[in-house]
């Protein structure tokens, strides 16, 4: 949110054009064409087909899938794996959203202060964001092994009682995956909060300080309202990416042990590409689309309200 132009660019609702342009009308179609063709090819057509297959029994091979109505969707409700996957998906999305943003905000406040190491810390904490999720996944798979570095580290600082079979225990594994996601993306939240914090003029905080407002009071009454857009964006970014999570889970557990860490995305992949249940996978994808659409609609409403 650096320059005013950038901030303006984020406006969701187009303002009325000042005046219509002459000379554009006929030639400008060509400008949209390449983007439109590729978008239709890679997104519109396959998404429409995907939604269509959700109402068939297609196995991915047979030439003539037969329509089965809502059967695939009712199957989801009676499939214990799918119920666990949906529960996991919602749990991961919400827990990661809350924890990642609280930590991201605290770190942002920390490195937005006058400490000498602030620039180095910003760079280091953001670094995992640019690392491939699968590299992160493999790294943590090793760290979280029963005799891995995490358990050894806990032992070393006298917290041996907290040792876990992190990825092997069905009750713990999904939480271990959340820790990894938070580690990877807390820097992203930090950067967005930092951008928001830097938009708050020092004079305002100084004035409040002179008026006797303590640091908690200053945070709650001045910083928090001015951070509102950054908070909304952060919450939604992490919520939507949490709903779609695939890479980390696939690399660390492949949905195991015993399906305990499946998310909707991993279940779609295994059903469609390993078990040949395209129709069922497509129905799960439609469910995921609905979740993402609901989250996006909430975001749209919140941002629209802030802008007006």
């Amino acid at each position, binding site marked *: *949110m650096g*320059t005013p132009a*950038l901030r*303006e*660019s*984020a*406006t*969701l609702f*187009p*303002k009325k054009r000042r*005046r*219509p*342009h002459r000379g*554009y009308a006929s030639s*400008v179609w060509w*400008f*949209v064409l*390449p*983007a439109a063709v*590729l978008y239709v090819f*890679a*997104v*519109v*057509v*396959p*998404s429409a*087909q995907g939604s269509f*297959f959700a109402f068939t029994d297609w196995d991915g091979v047979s030439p003539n899938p037969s329509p089965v109505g809502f059967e695939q969707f009712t199957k989801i409700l009676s499939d214990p794996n799918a119920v666990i996957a949906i529960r996991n998906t919602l749990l991961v999305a919400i827990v990661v959203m809350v924890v990642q943003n609280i930590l991201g905000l605290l770190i942002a406040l*920390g490195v937005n202060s*006058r*400490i000498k*190491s*602030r620039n180095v*810390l910003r*760079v280091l904490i953001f670094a995992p*964001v*640019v690392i*491939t999720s699968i*590299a992160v996944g493999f*790294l*943590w798979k*090793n*760290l979280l092994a029963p005799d891995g*570095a995490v358990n*050894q*580290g806990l032992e070393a600082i006298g917290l041996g009682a907290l040792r876990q079979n992190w990825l092997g225990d069905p009750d713990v594994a999904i939480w271990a995956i959340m820790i990894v996601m938070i*580690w990877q993306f807390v820097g992203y939240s930090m*950067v*967005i909060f*930092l951008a928001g914090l830097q938009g708050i003029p020092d004079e305002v905080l100084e004035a409040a300080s002179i008026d006797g407002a303590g640091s908690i009071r200053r945070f709650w009454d001045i910083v928090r309202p001015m951070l509102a857009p950054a908070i909304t*964006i952060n919450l939604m970014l992490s919520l939507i990416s949490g709903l*779609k999570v695939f890479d980390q889970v696939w*690399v660390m557990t492949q949905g195991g042990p015993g399906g305990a860490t499946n998310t909707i*995305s991993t279940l*779609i*992949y295994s059903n469609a*590409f390993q078990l040949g249940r395209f129709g069922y996978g497509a129905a799960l*994808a439609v469910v995921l689309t609905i979740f993402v659409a609901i989250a*996006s609609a909430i975001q749209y409403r919140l*941002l629209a309200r802030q802008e007006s």
Partner: protein
Amino acid sequence: MYRYTWRTGVLEVVMILVALIFLFPIYVLFNLAFKATGDQSSTLAPPERFTFDNFAQAWSQGGLGNALINSAIVTVVTIAMIVIFSAAAAYPLSRVGARWSKITYFAFLAGLLLPVQLALLPLYQIIRDLGLLGTLWGVILVGVGGAMPFSIFLYAGFMRALPAEYEEAAALDGASAFRTFWSVVFPLVRPITGTVAILNAVWTWNDFLTPLLYLSGSQQKTITVAVYGFVGQYGAQWNLIFAGIIISILPILVAYFLLQKYIVQGFAGGLKG
């Protein structure tokens, strides 16, 4: 108001401790990669002797060099196409007030709602039927098409905030719409081009699912697919695996540390995604 008080000092110590805990996994990553295969010391202890053997072996056996080149090709071509196509499309969509332009804009935005999983299965068939399976073009075209909604959204927002006077002057001087776009508008939107390029470059380089689907089983691999296969092949030889992982993330980490100011700005500039 901003003196370095004892409270700042305490904060500094706390923040450095947080950072050390945060960087613990990275320490283990490098520590194991530099250990000889037979080194029986604990994961946490530094290597008995430093060795580059794991790197040499990972490099020669993992086909990582080829995969890095493929990833570089995919990323550069994808980004070039994304920037040109999405900037060009956003220009009329942000300038023409006609109804078709608004409808097209929102049709693009609707793509933001669709998770890639919904399109995954049919797109696989389409790519296969086009004979693009196992080629880098399949990955590139899918990547460019999928990036259109967000990139057009960023460009259109930025262009709307741009005063139209420069373009009107160019039009008065007789410049064609294409010329106006290329010589006047495109240079003016450079800040958002940076954001679009950086965000998409990181996503493209790191993408796993798309290349896994369209390249698996072929000789062409991107770095993420190569690392995935490499780990499958070397099972529990973590020293080797970690060396391979370091090789795979090194290019992007070097780019990040060199360009960190721009990259962080790029991410922050894409705020409202």
